């Protein structure tokens, strides 16, 4: 079962990283000068939030072979969860960026910084700090989404649990252990989130 837990953590980390990358790109598109980028990003967010993750997972899982990639269920799960979470990360980053005081932007432009410089050195650092609490919540949601990968036979914690149950016929003990595993890791994430918030509160934002 420990192997299953390892795979769960791997899946969570990979999906979370992917969602951060996609979320950042998506937010950049939304706030860019290109109307097409805005429309693309909004459609992406709407699609991800308007459909169940299970269905998205199956679409990716059955769609990958059509692109020539066969038999990769871990990849399918990572892509599906990553893309789904990326939409929520987009919204989180969008809210954070819009909450950076306008004076920061004005001051940066007054000094003569270009748009790229302002974004990189003034806006994004502050936006990232503002978004930390919501991002850790989202990270926890990614963790809680990983059991869905068991329906495409990714050997994560829940799937491993069901395999053991099929062998030993002790659903109660196994499932309660599995549940406890998730609760423990979720609590760890919550503690990490609180620690991070305290560290960054020094910045007096």
């Amino acid at each position, binding site marked *: 079962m420990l192997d299953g837990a390892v795979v769960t953590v791997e899946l969570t980390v990979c999906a979370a990283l992917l969602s951060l990358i996609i979320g950042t790109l998506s937010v950049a598109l939304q706030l860019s000068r290109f109307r097409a980028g805005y429309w693309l990003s909004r459609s992406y967010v709407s699609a991800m939030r308007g*459909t169940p993750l*299970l269905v998205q997972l199956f*679409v990716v899982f059955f769609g990958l072979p059509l692109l020539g990639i066969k038999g990769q269920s871990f990849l399918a799960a990572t892509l599906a969860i990553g893309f789904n979470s990326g939409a929520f990360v987009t919204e989180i980053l969008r809210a954070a960026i819009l909450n950076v005081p306008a004076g920061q932007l004005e001051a940066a432009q007054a000094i003569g910084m270009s748009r790229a410089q302002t974004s990189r050195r003034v806006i994004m650092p502050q936006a990232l700090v503002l978004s930390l609490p919501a991002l850790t919540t989202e990270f926890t949601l990614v963790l809680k989404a990983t059991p869905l990968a068991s329906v495409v036979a990714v050997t994560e914690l*829940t799937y491993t649990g069901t395999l053991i149950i099929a062998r030993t016929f002790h*659903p109660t003990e196994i*499932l309660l252990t599995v*549940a406890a595993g998730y609760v423990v890791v*979720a609590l760890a994430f919550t503690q990490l989130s609180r620690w991070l918030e305290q560290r960054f509160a020094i910045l007096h934002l």
Partner: protein
Amino acid sequence: MDWQLMFDNLPLLLEGLERTIAISIAGVVLGAAVAAILVALQRSGRRWLIVPVRVYTEVVLGMPNLVLLYIVFYVLPGVGLLIEPLAAGLITLILYYSPYFAEVMRGALAAIPAGQIEAGRAVGMSRPAVMWRIILPQAFGLMLPPMTNLIIGLIKDSSILSVISVVELAFQTKQVIARTYAPFEVYLLVAIIYWVLISTVAVGLRRAERWVTLYRRA
């Protein structure tokens, strides 16, 4: 992609959609009812009532809903309660979402200025009357935006019930795929159906939000 094949199987999918809508409505109504009870318990001030609620909330908030579903379906029979899939699924949805609903309700109730209660009591209204005629109407308007997100989440999570062979949209897609052997196309179509359903619900709830807060914006 054979669209004629899709249209032929549409009735099966629509039957699943009907069941999904029914399950979602039941889940929301019952979940909100349980949440109201949870909130009442938490505001009672009695520790022996509050502590179990907090424990239950913390435990459920940390658990994935699929794991909770397996527990309800596979573990409860061990203690003598044999539950059919639909009931197990509904119970899971309610167990999972009522803490979230309760947190939203608690926040909404706490956001009403205490002056409202004081004024109501000052003109001689009883406690229940104050709650029913002054607090709840205002709290309802505050609750709706976060509840919209939760309700949409519940509708999406109803798809998980397909793992327990509950007849709803996600389960019916597997039936259709068994007939058509076109998993990608069918799941894409079903994704669109879900998207239309959820967008409609979202728009409807936003209208409801505006109607409920008319008193504030007239």
